[in-house]
Structures are given as C-alpha cells and as structure tokens.
C-alpha cells in the first residue's frame, strides 16, 4: 500500500529501529543492495533549491541501482504556469515510482502526498518538517552513542526557528531517560509550545542556559545550529551573541571525551574548522548517515507500495 512520510512522527519507534537496521546492513553489505531498486525511478521535485538534500536522495537511489528524474526548477517550470502542487504530484506519479519533494510552503508535502498515487517523502516543507534530516541525526546518535536513552543532549544556537531541533526533540522524546540542555540566546529560546507540549507533557528533564561553555562538560551529544543575522532585531545583539555560540577546539577541551558533535549543515562559522579533525566531530558522518537512512526509507516505501 502507498505510504508517505511527511513528519518524523509518521514513523513509529519500531519502524525507526527497522530503518536503522536496514541502514546498518547497507553499510555492512553495500553490494547486496546495489540492484535493490533496479528499474525504479525516484523523482526529486524541488520547488526551492537545496543541493545537498537533493544530492543525498539522488545518491541514495543510484546506490540502490535505481534511476533518478530530477526536477530542480519545479517552481519555475510548473508553479509559474499556475499549476498546483496537487496537479504536479499527479503528473509526476505517471513517470516515477517515488517522489522526494522540497517546497517552501508548510504542508506542501502533505498536499502532494494526498494527490500522488506513489509514495512521497518530505524533503523539507518550509519551516515545518524535514524528517530525513532527523533520520540522519538518529542514525548518527545510534552509531556514535550506541543507544537512544540515558543521554544528555545539548541543543545550541537558534532553538526558536530551527525545525531540525524541534524535530529531533520530538523524535528523542519517545525514548526514556534522556535529558535536554537548551543553549541559546534569550531571543532564540525554544518556543514554549515545544517545552509545554513535548518536554513537560512527557516529564522529560531539561535545563535552559545561555552559556555553551557552562553546558559543555555534561553533554553526551551537542547539536549545533546556525544563529542567523536576520533573526535579530538589531545588529548589536547579533554581534554581541554570535561568537558565544561558536564551538572551537579550545572550548571543546572542557567536553567529555566521547561527546558527539552534530550539525545539520551547512555551517557558516558556528563550528570552527579546528574542530573538524577532532574525533568528536560527527557532522560529516551525519551527511553520510543521511544517505544511508534515505536508502533505507526509499527501500521500505517502495516495498510497501508494491504490497
């Protein structure tokens, strides 16, 4: 049966486990999967550019032996002619077996999924959801920390607008014995509805701080995000705060030896390049893990669609 993935919470924890198991099997035995999607086509339908996400989906499909139809200018080719997202999804359903879609409007992937006759994977719908990023984050945590529980997870930077952060909290809140440390300037604190509806509702411990240095020593995972200039009301606040959320080799000295440093990328300057060679830097592994999880998800959805 056709099934789409719009939000990370569309996948149960059992399904996450099975996707992780598939991804780890792909990592161990890539040749076994080299023809798994032979004869199948993935359409990457991007209404706004996101080269790294599109490349990850396309590389994933190629490594499964499938083919790719790439629409990089969906916004100019269909939307400018007034075509609705629903009609575009119906049309693409005639050519491809599965869609990965990126769109600037929130909820666009659900509209496409409701209209398409083939599975749709949300590759980002505005500030709303980006489930395959969270899947990449989860595989990284699993491979680096060995578990999804008993972790102290620091989230640093823009916690207000960062959808990757909200999504990771939603995903990790389903596992026991984790604690969150929310590190951000006052202006970019985690929205109260996330605190109330997720953390407080589930009784998950968390603390809030404005100091990365103060939080670092207790963390098992540090998820960095970019503090963007345009989020601030005035330039002085931005200049005052931007450097306090830069992780560099000097600050990292205070951290645990087995800390896992993550970042959804692209980074600008929030992680200094002198961190890159540190074994605790996991953000490029995260990119690779994203490809493996996308492979696992494409396999799962194509298999379910054929049943």
């Amino acid at each position, binding site marked *: 049966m056709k099934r789409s993935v719009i939000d990370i919470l569309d996948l149960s924890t059992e399904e996450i486990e099975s996707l992780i198991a598939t991804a780890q099997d792909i990592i161990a035995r890539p040749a076994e999967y080299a023809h798994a999607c032979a004869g199948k086509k993935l359409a990457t339908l991007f209404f706004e550019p996101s080269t790294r996400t599109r490349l990850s989906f396309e590389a994933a499909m190629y490594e499964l032996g499938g083919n790719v139809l790439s629409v990089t200018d969906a916004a100019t080719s269909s939307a400018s002619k007034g075509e609705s997202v629903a009609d575009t999804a119906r049309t693409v359903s005639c050519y491809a077996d599965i869609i990965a879609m990126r769109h600037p409007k929130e909820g666009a992937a*659900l509209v496409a999924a409701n209209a398409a006759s083939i599975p749709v994977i949300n590759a980002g719908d505005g*500030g709303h959801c980006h489930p395959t990023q969270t899947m990449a984050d989860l595989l990284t945590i699993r491979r680096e920390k060995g578990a999804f529980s008993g972790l102290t997870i620091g989230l640093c930077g823009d916690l207000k607008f960062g959808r990757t952060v909200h999504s990771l909290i939603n995903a990790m809140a389903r596992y026991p014995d984790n604690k969150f440390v929310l590190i951000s300037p006052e202006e970019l604190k985690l929205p109260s509805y996330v605190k109330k509806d997720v953390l407080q509702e589930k009784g998950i411990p968390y603390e809030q701080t404005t100091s990365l240095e103060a939080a670092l020593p207790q963390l098992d995972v540090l998820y960095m995000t970019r503090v963007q200039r345009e989020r601030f009301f005035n330039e002085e606040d931005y200049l005052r705060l931007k450097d306090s959320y830069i992780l560099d080799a000097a600050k990292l000295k205070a951290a645990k030896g087995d800390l896992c440093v993550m970042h959804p990328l692209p980074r600008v300057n929030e992680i200094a390049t002198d961190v890159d060679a540190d074994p605790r830097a996991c953000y490029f592994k995260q990119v690779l893990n994203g490809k493996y999880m996308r492979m696992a998800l494409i396999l799962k959805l194509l298999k379910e669609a054929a049943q």
Partner: protein
Amino acid sequence: MNIDAIQNGIVIDHITAGRGMRIYELLGLDALDVSVAIIKNAVSHRDGGKKDIIKIDSDIAINFDVLGFVDPGVTVNIIRNGQLVEKRRIDMPERLVNVIRCKNPRCITSVERSIDHVFKLTDRKNMVYRCLYCETKVAQ
C-alpha cells in the same frame, strides 16, 4: 419575525455569551435569505449566567461542526409546526472542513487552489484545533 414563536426553524441555545456573532458568521447566516434573531446576553435559566441565543426562522441545514468547534456546550432545538421535535447536544468534530482558513502566510493553503481547508482536533481537553497541513493552532 416573532422571536418567541418560531413555527419551523432552529433555536441554538446556551451559546457562551459573546460567541453568538462568531457562530452567526461561520454558519454563513448573513448570506441566507431567512429571518435570524441573535439575542445577546440573555439570562440563562440553567444557572442565572449570561448566554447568547440564535433563532433561525426556517428549517435550513446548518453545519453542526461549526457549533462543535466554536462552542460545544450549545443545544440545538429543532422546531416543526411550532413544536420542539428534537433537542440536540453538540460534540467537538474531529475534523473541521472548509469552515475557516489557516492564517499562517507560510502555509500551503495560502497559495494552493482547490484545496480543502482542514483543521483537526489535537487536544480535546483544551479544545485545540490545528491546521492539517502546517499544524498552526487556530483560535475559535
């Protein structure tokens, strides 16, 4: 229209004081060619508090989901030939379709044509409805 003696029509009673106009708007009663009376701040004989009442002097079909969404405590009295033939309690609908629109300018419903505007009940206790597409909370 004699507001006390409706022959065939609907009386929406026990509306929380102040919500009568919102119900009137969402039911689209302004667009109908029927007599409608809105009574605001009437004294409720249930508890002596205040309530609004809407009397519609015609046996039209109304969208009960609107009532369940705005004010699930209302009662609907259906009157035929001057007699009360049915008294209905209203429940909160699980989904509200094409009654209100999402106000989030970043929501796909702001640009996509011929799309159903759907809100789902996500928290019954606190009467929270969210846009099906972008999950923005909506106010009653």
